[in-house]
Each structure stands twice: as structure tokens, then as C-alpha cells.
């Protein structure tokens, strides 16, 4: 199963980035083989619709689950339509998040947990 984790950097030691659409990297982790690759998030600087575009790209990569800090309504709609499971509320290192995910410690997210534009750094 391929899992995408929103990441502040390109390694397993990086931290989970709380923003789904505007994180700098996605770590695409394969739970069967234990291998991973880091994908730069081209949507992070999008003028608008970063979450939508990011969710589209994640879906195109045949990812089955997303681990992140928060997910907004537009990204949620796309990920849901793509039947991708969302686990939000993750913090700490990517490595730690993967361990928790494997142990089943994350609960699937039932709906968006932040408003649109959360990842743009405005309060």
C-alpha cells in the first residue's frame, strides 16, 4: 500500500508538515517493501487551489492513504472522490508517523478539519 505523508523535507528524519496542499514535500512510502521516495510538491506555491492540485497529483500516483496535519474542504473532496483514506492530526518525524500508522494508531478523518487557505499561513 502506497502512503503519502506531507513532509517538511526529503528524508524520513524530516517532520510531518501540518499543511496538506502547501507542504514542501511528500514522502511516498510503500508499506510492503518499506521503500520510500520524496516528491517535491509543485502545488506549494500555487496562487489558488493548492489543495486540489496536490490531491490530484497524489491520486495520479496511485496513493491509497494520506497522513498529514490538516486537510481543507477542497482537498478533502478530491481525496474522497479518489477513494484515498485520510489520516490527519499527525505530528513529529515522518519515521514516527509511519510507525504509528503501521500500528493502527491513527483514526481515519471523516471530514475537513481546517478551512480553505489554512496552509497560506494566515490566521
Amino acid at each position: 500500500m502506497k502512503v503519502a505523508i506531507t513532509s517538511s523535507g526529503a528524508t524520513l528524519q524530516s517532520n510531518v508538515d501540518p499543511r496538506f496542499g502547501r507542504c514542501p514535500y511528500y514522502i511516498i512510502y510503500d508499506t510492503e517493501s518499506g521503500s520510500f521516495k520524496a516528491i517535491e510538491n509543485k502545488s506549494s506555491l500555487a496562487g489558488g487551489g493548492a489543495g486540489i492540485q496536490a490531491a490530484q497529483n497524489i491520486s495520479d500516483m496511485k496513493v491509497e492513504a494520506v497522513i498529514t496535519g490538516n486537510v481543507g474542504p477542497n482537498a478533502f473532496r478530491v481525496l474522497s472522490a479518489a477513494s484515498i483514506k485520510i489520516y490527519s492530526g499527525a505530528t513529529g518525524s515522518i519515521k514516527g508517523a509511519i510507525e504509528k500508522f503501521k500500528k493502527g494508531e491513527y483514526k481515519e478523518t471523516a471530514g475537513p478539519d481546517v478551512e480553505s487557505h489554512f496552509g497560506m499561513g494566515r490566521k
Partner: protein
Amino acid sequence: MIISVASGKGGTGKTTIAVNLALSLSNVQLLDCDVEEPNCHIFIKPVFENKNTVFIPIPQVDSKKCDGCGRCQEFCAYNAIAVVNKEVLIFPELCHGCGSCAYFCPHGAIKETNKDIGIIEIGKSGEIQFIHGKLNIGMMMSPPVIRAVKKHINKKKTVIIDAPPGTSCPVITAINDTDFVILVTEPTPFGLNDLSLAVEVVRKLKIPFGVIINRSDLGNKKTDEYCVRENIPILMRIPFSKKIAEIYSRGDSIIETLPEYRENFQRLFENIKQGKNWLRIK
């Protein structure tokens, strides 16, 4: 002649200048293009005669013709479309109504439908013809509403446009194709920073412009120094005055309460019209 009143920073006094300039002149049209929060009407108290709805075309997918190929998503420059599991998801609030998705759909599966995004209201206040736009709450696409307001420009009149603040699409839509831009600023670090950004925009558009320094006796001298260095004419200075603040807070105009200002605004207009101190475009 079309004069637009803009600023980088918000709250510098654009509306005050636009309203008082309009009230000081004859044969005038005042257009409030700050459609996200129009407020000229508070000061000139117009009577509205007409109201029009502004629409943009947004895509609608015929699921019988669509095979989920994703071309529309590839062409959408605004991330308003996602295609997952062969299903097209449309996000109307992000759509700019450019029509690319319908144009490039290989199966003719997209037709455009109108979505209303705001209104314009047309009226009168004394001799002034007044038009303003109001973007619907929750909508982000103000330029189509601004364009709808500007469609009513009557070139036989002196046209004053109150532009939105900032330096992005809404401002450019409002000041584009005007003959002169008045940039209103205040002599503070914030004011100067945003003024210099606005100057870059206006220079890019190659529109002659000058600066009005509001609350001119506050802050520091850096704005003056900047204007001298950049060869930008300072058209007018309005001091920080409790009296003017009171007039504003009541929703009145300066020129009706302090009649000496009428002449100042008329002189401002004459100077602009005669091209006095116009910036030479580099």
C-alpha cells in the same frame, strides 16, 4: 478623462480623495471599483435606479459524453478542476471563467453555465452619476465585477475611479486604461513600502501618475525623499486633522464641511489635466 485613485496600502484615503474630487468637479462619473468593500456610497448617498447581476461562465460536465480523460484538468490554470476515478470535480469559486476547459474538451462534454458572482448598481447623487459593484460574499473573483462597472464609463464625462487597495489583479483591472493614477499614501514605513510596490505596477502599465500624501504631518520624511529620488510629483498633501477624521466618521465629505478644500481639489484636477508635473515614463 479617466482618473483612477489607488494605493498599495489600504486605509490611506483613496475613497476620501475619490469622493471629494468627484464632488468638486462638474459633469462627473464616480465609479467605486473596490467591489470587495465598496464604500463611496456612504459619503455621496446616491439614489440607485438600476441593478444588474454579474455572471461568469463556469463549466458543467455532461457525464454521458465525458470519458474522464482529464484534459480539462490539465488546461485549467486555476486548479478549479480535478479528475479522479474518471469523475470530474469542479470548484466554481476558483474558476475564472476563461472557457479553456470547454474549448479543449475532446468530447464536447463541457458546456458553460452562468454563475452570479456579484451585482452592480447604477444611480445618481446630485449631478454625479454613480456606479459601484458588489462582489458576492465568499467569492474571490472581483475582476469580472470591476469590468462590469467599467463598462459604464462615459468618456464624455470626467470619470473618477476608486480602486481597491493592493497591487494584484483587482487593482490592475481597475486602473488599466485610465489616463492618470493618483496614488494615495501616508508617510509611514508601511505606507512607503506599499507605495513603492504600487509605483512599480503603475510604471509597468505605463500610466502617468502622482502621489497624494495623506496625514502628511505624521510619520517621517522618507516618503518625500522617495518621491524626489524617483521623480514622482507630489500632487497634494492633506494634514492629519481631527476635524477631517470627524467628518469621515460621520460619513460626510470634506469639501462640504471645509469649503477651502473644494478649490484644492479643483486645482488638483486642473494640474492633472494640464499634465503639470506629470511623470515622464522612463
